[in-house]
């Protein structure tokens, strides 16, 4: 499956993922403390951050912000009518800066690096005696099975079209869910046949 990591590699790809995520969390909280002038500066700073990756990279980043336009339009209309232009500009700038920052981290961090951070974040659970390999296996399973379930859906839609002149509708969701549950049972049996998902207990014989 294709992740949202940008194929254009820039310097930020080499920064450790944990550092980027920490910086993102701190900066996102700080954005709520800034006045309109500060927000304008922050927005410019983020724009420059994108431009350090080149114009093509910045263009990619800008395209990811398109989903904000209904909200920007709404803010513009609202504050245009009420006349609170400065407050409106602050809201719009914060929306753009916050989303752009988060997207920057996603665009410059590979899936494998993100999974390393997730594993590190789950470490306290391991110390409590909980197994986190189930989480890691589950992530791999979702990656593997999503394209398969999409294919199931497409096949069901195709066979629906072969039988009916009407468009396939919500009725294909039921067989999709049923097939997913069948697959889950098959995979569970296969996992159990291979020794299960839990690591063998220390000193235990059957590993359960």
């Amino acid at each position: 499956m294709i992740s949202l990591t940008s194929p254009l590699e820039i310097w930020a790809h080499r920064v450790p993922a944990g550092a980027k995520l920490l910086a993102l969390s701190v900066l996102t909280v700080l954005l709520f403390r800034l006045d309109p002038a500060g927000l304008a500066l922050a927005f410019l700073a983020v724009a420059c951050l994108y431009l350090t990756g080149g114009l093509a990279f910045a263009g990619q980043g800008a395209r990811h912000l398109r989903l904000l336009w209904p909200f920007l339009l709404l803010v513009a209309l609202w504050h245009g009518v009420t006349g609170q232009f400065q407050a409106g500009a602050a809201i719009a700038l914060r929306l753009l800066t916050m989303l752009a920052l988060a997207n920057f981290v996603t665009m410059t961090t590979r899936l494998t690096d993100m999974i390393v951070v997730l594993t590190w974040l789950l470490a306290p659970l391991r110390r409590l005696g909980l197994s986190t390999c189930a989480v890691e296996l589950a992530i791999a399973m979702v990656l593997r099975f999503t394209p398969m379930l999409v294919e199931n859906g497409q096949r069901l839609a195709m066979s629906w079209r072969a039988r009916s002149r009407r468009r396939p509708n919500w009725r294909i969701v039921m067989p999709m869910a049923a097939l997913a549950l069948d697959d889950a049972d098959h995979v569970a049996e296969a996992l159990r046949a291979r020794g299960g998902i839990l690591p063998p207990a220390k000193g235990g014989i059957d590993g359960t």
Partner: protein
Amino acid sequence: MERDMTRIALFAALIAALGLIPSLTLAFGVPITAQSMGVMLAGAILGAKRGALAVLLFMALVALGLPLLAGGRGGLGAFVAPTSGFFLGWPVAAFVIGLIVERLRSGPLAVTVALASIIGGIVVMYAFGIVGMSIALKKTLAECAVLVTAFIPGDIIKAVLTGLITQALARSRPAALLSRQ
């Protein structure tokens, strides 16, 4: 243990798949994305705890940078957009739906699930969504509530469909309905 884990993983994959297939069209031509129906189904079929875990697993994959949300969106941006409140409310919605289906055992299954989906998938989820919007857009809760009312009819339809789908699934795979076991 294995079975619970694979069902949680497969349901997370189902939520993703429902966002990737083209939006379904209802009888009267209104296109809806089926993804939030996946959240309702996770709660209704897997039950409160497993349903919420399936949704959390799906959200973790979105956070890792996979474009699994309807329309090919994803990444950390999904957590800071004006509509992120709805997204953050998903696991709670699935939990509440599962809890109601587990506890309320009288009456036809389709009606119970539809009712649970309206409470969890609309009341609970919109509460999160409205608070999120009010933080992002600096508007009062009432003003944000007005903005999202347009989406309620579509979600009521999804809740009813969730009831019908769960009932059909309970008939074809009686053992699969973990929320009633």
